[in-house]
C-alpha cells in the first residue's frame, strides 16, 4: 500500500513539474512583451526596457524558469507586479476563501446527486428516472454564470431571500456568512449535480444488472439488504473518483462564480492577475490550482483502492 501511494505521489510530482513548464511556457514564451503590456502602447521603449530589467523578464527564459521554480519549491512565489506585495499570502488567503465556498458546494451537491442518481437507477426507465436524468443533463450543461444570473434574478431580486453578493459586512456572524455563500455554492453545484448523479446512476444500474446482485436476490435476501449491502458499495465506488476529477471543473467554475458574486477567492485572484498581466500572481495561482487538483485525485485514488479489495490486494502484492 505504501509503495502504491509513493508511486502515485511520484507521478503527481512529475505532473506538477510538467504543469509548471506548461504554465511558464504559455505565459512567457508566447509572443508578448511583459513590460509593454503593463505600460501600454504609448510608453517609451526605454521605460519598457527598464521595467523588463527590473522584473527580470529580459533574462534568458531558462534562467527565469529556474529562478521561478526554485522560488516556488522554497515557498516563495515572488512579488506581485501589480500590487507590489508578496504573492504567497495573497494565494493562501484566496485559497482559504475558495475552500470554504467549495466545501459548502460539495456538502450540498454530493449527497443530493448520489441520492438522485440512486433513485433514478432504482426506478430505471420510469418518469422519475427520465426527470432526474434530464434535469441533471440540463443543469450540467448550463454555464455557471447563467445559473448564477438566473439565481440572482430569482432568489436575490424577485424573491429577495438571499443576498446577491458573497462579500459580507465585516464582523458578520457565521450564519450570515453562510447565507452569503449559499447562492454561489448552489450556482457551483448545478454543474456538478448532473455529472455525479449521472455516474451514480450508471454505476447503480450496472450493479443492479450484475450477476452478483442476481445471486443476492436469488438467495432470498430482502430487497433493502440487496441494495444496501450488495449493490450500493460496488456502484458508488467509481463515483468517488469522479467526484475528485470534477474538482477541476469546480475550480474552473470558481473563477466565474467568484467574479459574479464578488468573492475574494483563488478564481477571482487568477482572473484579476490575468487581466492585469500580473505574471507572478498568475503563475502562482495556476500552479496552486494544479497542485490542489493533483492532491484531490491522489486522495481519491488512495480512498478508492482502500475501499476496493481488488485494487487493495494488487497494491499490496
Amino acid at each position, binding site marked *: 500500500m505504501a509503495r502504491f501511494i509513493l508511486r502515485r505521489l511520484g507521478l503527481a510530482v512529475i505532473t506538477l513539474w510538467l504543469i509548471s513548464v506548461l504554465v511558464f511556457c504559455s505565459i512567457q514564451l508566447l509572443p508578448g512583451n511583459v513590460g509593454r503590456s503593463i505600460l501600454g502602447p504609448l510608453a517609451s521603449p526605454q521605460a519598457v526596457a527598464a521595467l523588463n530589467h527590473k522584473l527580470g523578464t529580459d533574462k534568458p527564459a531558462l534562467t527565469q524558469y529556474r529562478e521561478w521554480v526554485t522560488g516556488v519549491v522554497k515557498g516563495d512565489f515572488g512579488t506581485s507586479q501589480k500590487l507590489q506585495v508578496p504573492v504567497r499570502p495573497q494565494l493562501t488567503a484566496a485559497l482559504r476563501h475558495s475552500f470554504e465556498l467549495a466545501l459548502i458546494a460539495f456538502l450540498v451537491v454530493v449527497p443530493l446527486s448520489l441520492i438522485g442518481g440512486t433513485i433514478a437507477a432504482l426506478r430505471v426507465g420510469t418518469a422519475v428516472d427520465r426527470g432526474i436524468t434530464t434535469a441533471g443533463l440540463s443543469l450540467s450543461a448550463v454555464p455557471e454564470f447563467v445559473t448564477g444570473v438566473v439565481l440572482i434574478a430569482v432568489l436575490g431580486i424577485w424573491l429577495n431571500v438571499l443576498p446577491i453578493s458573497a462579500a459580507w459586512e465585516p464582523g458578520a456572524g457565521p450564519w450570515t456568512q453562510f447565507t452569503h455563500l449559499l447562492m454561489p455554492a448552489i450556482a457551483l453545484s448545478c454543474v456538478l449535480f448532473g455529472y455525479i448523479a449521472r455516474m451514480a446512476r450508471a454505476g447503480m444500474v450496472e450493479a443492479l444488472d450484475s450477476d452478483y446482485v442476481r445471486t443476492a436476490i436469488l438467495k432470498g435476501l430482502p430487497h433493502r439488504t440487496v441494495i444496501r449491502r*450488495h449493490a450500493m458499495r460496488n456502484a458508488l465506488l467509481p463515483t468517488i473518483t469522479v467526484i475528485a476529477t470534477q474538482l477541476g471543473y469546480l475550480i474552473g467554475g470558481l473563477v466565474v462564480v467568484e467574479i459574479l458574486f464578488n468573492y475574494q477567492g483563488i478564481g477571482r485572484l487568477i482572473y484579476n492577475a490575468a487581466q492585469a498581466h500580473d505574471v507572478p500572481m498568475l503563475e502562482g495561482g495556476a500552479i496552486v490550482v494544479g497542485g490542489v487538483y493533483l492532491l484531490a485525485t491522489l486522495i481519491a485514488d488512495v480512498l478508492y483502492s482502500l475501499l476496493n479489495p481488488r485494487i487493495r490486494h494488487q497494491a499490496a502484492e
Partner: protein
Amino acid sequence: MREAISETAGEPPASAAALEVGELDVAYRVRGVNRQVLRSLSFTIAAGESYGLVGESGCGKSTAALAAVRYLPRNGRVLGGSVSIAGRDLLAMHGEELRRTRASDVSMVYQDPGRALNPSIQVGRQVAEVYEIAGAKGGEARAQAEQMLRKVQIADPGSVMRRYPHQLSGGMQQRIVIAMALASNPALLILDEPTTGLDATVEAEVLDLVATLRQEFSSSVLFISHNLGVISKMCDRVGVLYAGKLVEEGDAETVFNDPHHPYTVGLLRCLPRGGQRKDHGRLDTIPGFLPVPGADLPGCVFAERCAFADDRCRTEPPPPVDVGGGHTSRCWYHEKAQSLPRDTPSELPEVASPVTAGRPVLRAGAVSKTYRQAGSDVHALAGVTLEILAGETLGLVGESGSGKTTFARCLLGITAPDEGSTLELDDQPLAATTGKRSGEQVRAIQIVFQNPDSALNRRHTVRRIIGRALTKLAGLKGDAREQRLQELTRSVKLAERFLSVRPSSLSGGLKQRVAIARAFAGNPKLVVCDEPTSALDVSVQATILNLLADLQRDQQVSYLFISHDLGVVRYLSDRIAVLYLGRLMEVAAAEVVFAAPHHPYTEALLSAVPTIEGGDRPRIKLEGDIPSAADPPSGCVFHTRCPRRLGAICDEQEPPLAEVEPGHLLRCHIPIDDLRTMQSGSQPAPA
C-alpha cells in the same frame, strides 16, 4: 393476510414434483416486438431426480433456468403457462412469498462464478448470509458457513472465508457458489452451465463434488449444459431443447443411445466420438442455421433443417409421442429418425497419401518465454523443443496457463521468445518477431483465432478482409487477385454473396470460414489453429473440422491445433504434444497418447473428460489447482498434483523429456513399463 400466505405457502403435498414447468411461453421484448424464446415448454423434475436440459446456444436453456426462479431479464415476459416449485405456483406468488421460496426451496449455481460473487465482500460473509436469512445469528452463521465450506471440500475454510472472490481460482469460486446454493438445503438446485469456462480437470472435480453432494442433500437437480457428455454423466433424465421447444425427452442413457428425434440424431453425429479420426471419414453436419429468436415456426421447429420434413412438418406441430418408457419425441417420423440421411458424405476423396511426412517444416528449439510481472518472473514457456512435420496436424493440449497460446504466439512472431530460443522454418532460421521475417516466412505461418468475432475487423467487408490478405501475403493485384479471391472463397465453401457483407451479418461458422480463407491467402505451410471451434456450436464445429481436414488433404498444409476438447484434438491430430506449466510432458502419435501407457498428467486429462459413452472407467483425480508459473514447483513441475508420484525424486529432480519408445517422448521418472502396469486397469479413454 400474512397468515393466509403462510397457509398457502405451508407444507406442500408430500409427493410434489421439485419443479413442474407447464406450457411455459416466454418472450423477450426487443424494439417493441415480442420475440418468443420458449414455446410451451413443459417438463417435470421428480423429487430427488437429476434432470438435464441440453441444447445449442440460443435454444432457450438459460431462459428456462431463469424462468424457473422467476428472474427474467428486464425485457423478458411470461406469456403463459405455469412454474411450480415443490408444488407451489411460483408465478402467482407475492413479493415476500417469492423471496421466501427463493431463500429456502430453490438455489442456483451460475456459469461464471467470478461474476456471481460480490467482488467487495469476503466470501465467508457471502455464504454466512444464507444462514442469516434462515435466522442464524452472526457467529453461528459463520460457524455454519465454515462447516458448509468443508463439505464442498475446501481444505482450509477458515482462511478461505476471509478472502475476496478475485483471490480464488475459478474452481474455488464455483465451490463457494455451490456451498452458498446448498446452504439453504433447497428442494431444487439449478446448475446453469456450471463448468463452462473451467479447465477439464477442474470441471471434473466440480462435477464429482456436485454428484457427491446430491446424495447428501437429496436435492433435485436441473442441470443445464450445451455439453452432451456432461449431461450424460450428471443426469438421470434429459430434455433436448431446440428453438425454445422440448423436442425429445427421456432417460438420459436411452436418449443418447437410441435417439428418436432427427435433431438429437444429427447433434450426436456431429461429435467426433469413439476415437473417430479425420482419415476415417468426415463428421456429419446439420444443414442450415438455428432459427432466429422469435421466428414464426407454425409446424415442427426443426422442419427447416430436417431431411424428412414434408408439408405436414412445416404446418402442423407434432405432439410429443411416447416411444416407450417415458421417452417422448416430437416428430411425425420418430420411428425412422435414426435412418436420417447424412448431410455430409462420409467418404473422403482419394488423394495421394502424404509421402512427405517426416520432413519437418518447423523446428522449435528450447523455446522459452519469461514475462516480468509484479516484480517476479513468470515462466510461461520453459525450453519447448518440438518439430512440426509437413502435412501433419500437431495437437497441442494442456490446461489454461500451460503455455499453449504463448507457444503459438512465439511461432507467429507476435511474441518474441527469450534469448537462446531457436525457430527454424524449412531449415532457415526464423527471426523472433514478424517484422523481421522475410515476406516468404510471414506468409508461410498464419493463424485461425479462437473467436471469429474479434478476429475479423467488423468494419470491413468480407471481400476487403480476404482481399487485403491476398495483396499483402500473396502480392496479388487487380484481376489476378479477384480470381484468387473467388477460388479461395470457393475452397472454404463460402457463398459469393457473402463477399459484400460485413462480418456482423454472418453466423459464427461463416465468420470462421472467412478467417480460414484469410489464413490460407498466402498458401501457408503452417497454420496455427487456436481453439478454432470452441466458440462454435456442436453442429457448426463439425463443418469447420471437416473443412480444415479437407484443406489439409488438398494443400498439404501443417496445423498446430490447440484445443481443450480432446475429442476434437483426437479427430484432427496426427501427433499430440501435452503441455503443463510451460513444459512438454508428452509427445507422441495421437493414438499412442490416447492409449496407455501415458504420462500421469495425460492420464488425468483423459479421465477428466465426461463422455456420452459412459463413465465406468475410474477417475484419476488431481489435487488442487495448477501452480503459478511465477513460482513453479521444484523437481517435476507436476509432482504437486501427480496421483502416481514416486517419492522424493519427483520433488527434487526434474525428469528429462526422453524417448521411451520410438516416436514417444515422455517426461516422467516412472519407467514406461511400470506406467504400463499401473495404467492397465484403466482402459484408454474413448474420447
